[in-house]
């Protein structure tokens, strides 16, 4: 069995279905020691893949959640100011020089490690998840480039800290803005599309074993239909799982019109999308009427649903 296949099997054991292409990309992260930039629509398992990778490797997951305004200090380190203040007050009258006092309070004892520094000082290579990197500012992205290239951090008061075991890095992006070419070139890239019909059924069974064959097929087929509609927020795999759990909680074993009405809120999160569905209700009808059997020809839709760079016109 190849390393990628072994990785794929390990993910499957943990209820996370990855295809061989993604397993290979993760294998490359380990082999080439390069960060992996994962893009794709919301809810397809980008973040989860990093968590599962850490579990598979038996190492620590360190997560840096990006947001607008995130700066280098918040991501790297901060000094424990209240403790420093206290130490200064307590050491009053001890006759120490300014330099001695500085050396004392700017020591590792007073350092609060944030995710990036935490990832650098580990004794075993952790998985560093830099989540939603597109939400951070360009300035932070430039700073990130430096860290990802060198794996060393310079703290003026302490000196340079170099990673002994550089982390395995997974970056995720929802493409709310375009990332710089420089960042892309430092990373491997993988696009996670929505799963195909067969993949989605497999995911549903892997995550919710008690789900009936019929209901799993109905949910997966409904999702294929919904993702083909011009929705503002197309539902992802996370919505499929929520939907399945909601229907099970209603003690129903199949999807019909009544259940659809009761649980639609698990799938469509924007009012306008409900209106879109109303005008395309007939497209869902065969799924509700039929046995929900797996139809041949299920495929992953070749679109990123409005996230940009779509090369096919929507019908």
């Amino acid at each position, binding site marked *: 069995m*190849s*390393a*990628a296949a072994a990785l794929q099997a390990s993910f499957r054991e943990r209820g996370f279905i990855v295809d*061989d*292409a993604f397993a*290979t*990309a993760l*294998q*490359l992260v380990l*082999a*080439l020691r*390069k960060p*992996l930039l994962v*893009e794709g629509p919301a809810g397809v398992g980008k973040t989860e893949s990093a968590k599962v990778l850490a579990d598979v490797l038996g190492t620590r997951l360190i997560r840096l959640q990006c*947001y*607008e*305004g*995130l*700066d280098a*200090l918040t991501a790297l380190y901060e*000094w424990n*100011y209240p403790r*420093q*203040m206290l130490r*200064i*007050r307590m050491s*009053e009258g001890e006759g120490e020089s*300014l330099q001695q*006092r*500085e050396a004392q309070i700017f020591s590792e004892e007073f350092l609060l490690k944030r995710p990036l520094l935490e990832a650098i000082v580990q004794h075993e290579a952790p998985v560093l998840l830099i989540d939603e990197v597109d939400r951070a*500012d360009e300035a932070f992205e430039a700073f990130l480039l430096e860290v990802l290239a060198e794996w060393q951090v310079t703290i003026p008061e302490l000196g340079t800290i170099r990673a002994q075991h550089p982390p395995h890095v997974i970056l995720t992006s929802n*493409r*709310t*803005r*375009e990332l710089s*070419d420089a960042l*892309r*070139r430092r*990373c*491997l*890239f*993988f*696009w996670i599309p929505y799963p195909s019909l067969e993949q989605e059924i497999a995911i549903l069974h892997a995550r919710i074993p008690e789900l009936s064959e019929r209901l799993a097929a109905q949910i997966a087929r409904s999702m294929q239909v919904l993702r083909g509609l*011009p929705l*503002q927020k197309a539902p992802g795999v996370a919505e499929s799982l929520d939907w399945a759990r909601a229907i099970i909680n209603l003690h129903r074993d199949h999807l019909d019109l009544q259940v659809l009405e009761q649980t639609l809120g698990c799938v469509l999160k924007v009012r306008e999308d409900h209106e879109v569905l109303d005008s395309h209700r007939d497209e869902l009808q065969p799924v509700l009427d039929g046995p929900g059997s797996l139809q041949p020809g299920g495929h992953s839709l*070749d679109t*990123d649903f*409005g*996230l*940009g*760079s*779509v*090369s*096919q*016109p*929507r*019908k």
Partner: protein
Amino acid sequence: MTYPFDSLPANLAAFCDVLRDHRFRIGPRELQDAARALEITELFDERAVRNVLRPVLAGTFAEVHAFDRIFDRFFLRPAAVPAPATAAPAKTIADQAPPSGDPDLGRGAATDGDTAEEAAERGESQGAVQDVADAEGESTVALLRASYSPLDAEGAVLDLEPADRPWREAAAMLVSRVRAGRSRRWRPAARGPRFDLRRTLRSSLHTGGEVLSPRWQSRPRRRPRFVLLIDGSRSMATHTWPALQTAVGLAAVTLNTETFSFSTALRRITRDVRRAAGGERRLLQLHHAWGGGTAIGTCLREFLRLFGERLLGRDTLVMIASDGLDVGDPAVLRDAMAGISRQAAGIVWLNPLLGTPGYEPTALGMRIARPYVTTFASVTEPADLARLARVLRIR
């Protein structure tokens, strides 16, 4: 799996050359990584080779999609591979007979790796944005052109001039009028709502920890973003220049300016506008985006679909320059306007006919768009733009 050349390095280098021809950004580092990646895979398995090369050599969604097609053509139909264009790999394969050329693989078809935005920028018919018109049916497009373009205006060229000082000043006024929200980033400031502990501590070292001069932080304002959508149909032919000057003026003042032209299809012209703003005189090849009738709704819907999530937000002012003569489906225009209105800070409609005595906005497009527009204006000269800055209404 069949290979065009004898050795693995030669095949890899030639394949990367073909990818570069398709505008993939592949440098020495990527080539090296690709070689290292091949070391960990089984070379007899085509799928495995494809899977290790794709994450290394394709860096965007569009490239991922183009990669598989190019891979198939290169490795599975080697007869179709053109002679490598660059010198380095050519040396490696010097002894090989150059394979016959395939027009699909040459530079002429180098749109595979482009993003939709880049395609839109060039206004190429293969691009995703232009595909919309194709999807609507060529016959419809032809009808639109025939009804609005008795003369063939497809080759029209517009002179895009650098904005002179009055335009830039008026644009600067407009930028200053749009007050964006506060950033989440904290910055050192003379006064502010938050203590800057780091700087305060530093300054108090000299006074034994006694805080005599506290330092503060505040959140700076974000920069507003401007999106201009300029109607390039024939009925607007005499009115496009001031709209473009507005765009160039804004681009000279703020980098957060995006410009599109539309008629039967959407085209991104931000790059041309930015160059003009930088002082470069540009001849804008207008293609048919400037020739045919106006499907405003379809184009705005495409804008929303391709760029909405990225460009629209509470700090974005959308400016649409059009006479509102729409020949598309009214429902599509209504939905598109509603979508933009929901996501943007405001919509300014620049209607050149507004200054015409006795003009009433009765065109169907105008009537549909009206409820969503926050400010109507007509801009023909810098003074008009300055006036717009004074009367501008945003949410």
